[in-house]
């Protein structure tokens, strides 16, 4: 059957010419000379293994922090009055659609050695020397959590909304405490939302570029930054292609695994 495929064709042509073809072509460079040497370099040399490990570590931390901050936020917006929910939504969407560059710049202003935070902490006498908040792991984490938090809030909001409030009323009527209602009703029933949010945040973290490039100050190396350097500074296309192939495999692997899990979850 072929009913209705025709309208999709122009978009598919664009996606083929400017997405699938250039990406596959570039990944092909990694096999230059018919050897897997570039992959061996990417996955074997200590320097680069450390970058993989760094990237993974940062993605795990960012996902965990986003979940910790995103659940209460999504929960509150989903359970408050419509007027407050609209306001709550605006203040999640506004940062989401504000340029990542604007926000990254703002964090540099806030977290720098002479930045707003350090000045303030010194003024109130809490510290005497400025805290190192920028050009390190902490700075990258703060910046990335800020960018990715909305991606966690939205699916959790959706999951809490879909939950039948009668279940909560029933639990309350049966005398369950707040904590018990949270652990036994809300948490298990919103698990698909948590899972969807965690997956998208983790996957986006793996390929993140702007925030680590600017807030890491060259000291926190992530995969995307390394790939950019290989192209712009070292001009090493085969190696950049091999790194890209591994990053793509990781991303799609995590994503497909999550999809598989979600579909099983959805089955009755």
């Amino acid at each position: 059957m072929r009913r209705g495929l025709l309208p999709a064709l122009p978009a598919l042509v664009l996606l083929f010419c400017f997405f699938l073809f250039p990406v596959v072509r570039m990944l092909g460079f990694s096999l230059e000379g018919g050897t897997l040497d570039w992959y061996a370099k990417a996955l074997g040399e200590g320097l680069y293994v450390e970058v993989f490990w760094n990237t993974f570590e940062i993605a795990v931390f960012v996902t965990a922090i986003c979940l910790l901050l995103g659940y209460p936020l999504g929960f509150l917006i989903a359970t408050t009055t419509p007027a407050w929910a609209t306001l709550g939504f605006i203040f999640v969407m506004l940062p989401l659609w504000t340029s990542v560059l604007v926000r990254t710049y703002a964090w540099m202003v806030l977290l720098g050695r002479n930045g707003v935070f350090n000045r303030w902490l010194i003024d109130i006498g809490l510290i005497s020397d400025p805290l190192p908040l920028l050009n390190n792991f902490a700075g990258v984490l703060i910046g990335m959590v800020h960018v990715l938090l909305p991606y966690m809030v939205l699916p959790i909001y959706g999951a809490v909304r879909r939950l039948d409030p009668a279940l909560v009323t029933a639990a309350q009527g049966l005398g369950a405490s707040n904590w018990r209602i949270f652990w036994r009703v809300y948490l298990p029933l919103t698990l698909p939302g948590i899972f969807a949010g965690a997956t998208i945040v983790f996957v986006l973290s793996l390929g993140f570029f702007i925030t680590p490039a600017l807030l890491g100050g060259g000291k926190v190396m992530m995969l995307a930054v390394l790939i950019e350097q290989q192209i712009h500074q070292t001009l090493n296309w085969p190696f950049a292609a091999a790194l890209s192939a591994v990053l793509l495999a990781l991303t799609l692997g995590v994503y497909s695994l999550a999809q598989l899990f979600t579909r099983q979850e959805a089955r009755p």
Partner: protein
Amino acid sequence: MSRSASRRLLIVACTAIYVFLMLPLVVVFPISFSSALYMQFPPPGFSLQWYERYLDDPQWIDATVRSLYIGAATAVLALALGVPLAFALARGRFAGRLIVDRIALAPLVVPTIILSVGLYGLFAKLKLIGEWYGLVAAHTVLALPFVVLVTVAGLRDFDRALEQAAEGLGASRRQTLLRVTLPLLRPSLVSAGLLAFISSFDELVVALFLAGPNMTLPKKMFDNIMMEIDPTIAAVSVMQILLVSIVLVLIGRFGRGLRGSVR
């Protein structure tokens, strides 16, 4: 803990999280009006010098204008290609629909750095680096998933009885599409177009590779941050935040509610 007490705790925690979310957006406002010659907080006095510097610098204006028309062209192209694609996905019955769905949403999942490097290699060969329409093509790839998601969500809530009624009253398929289906779908289309525009207007990673010497606004900002952080960038940030606010207001007023597009 009583019910109201734990609710209050939740509200306090969320207020703190909102402060975290909004702080970077708020802090650029006072800095952009600073009378100091370098970054200083709190600013010693009020001045409009950074806005003047932005307006007097042809590089900044050039970059802004270029980003505006690349964003507009991206929105138009993404709608022209994405809406029919969404129709095919929501209503079509063809083999491989799932694959088409995966391909359409793939630009959301595949790291942008990989797309950028791939296009950089291809465009260098085709001598397309620095051409505005090359960036439009690349930005359209990135904007398509937004258009598809929002339009498919709109089509899912669509009452098809209205189309059947139009056809029953003798309207042609073309008339039904133009007079019934698309007008009813307008809120989704407005949201999709505006989101496509903003996603292109803010896009940095692809522009970093493909813009060449022709700056887009995000690339100009990136270079500015890398080289010298002067408060001009705070003034640009303020204008960018205001633009996003206007777009969100437009979406709220004329578009499909943002909450409606949450799956």
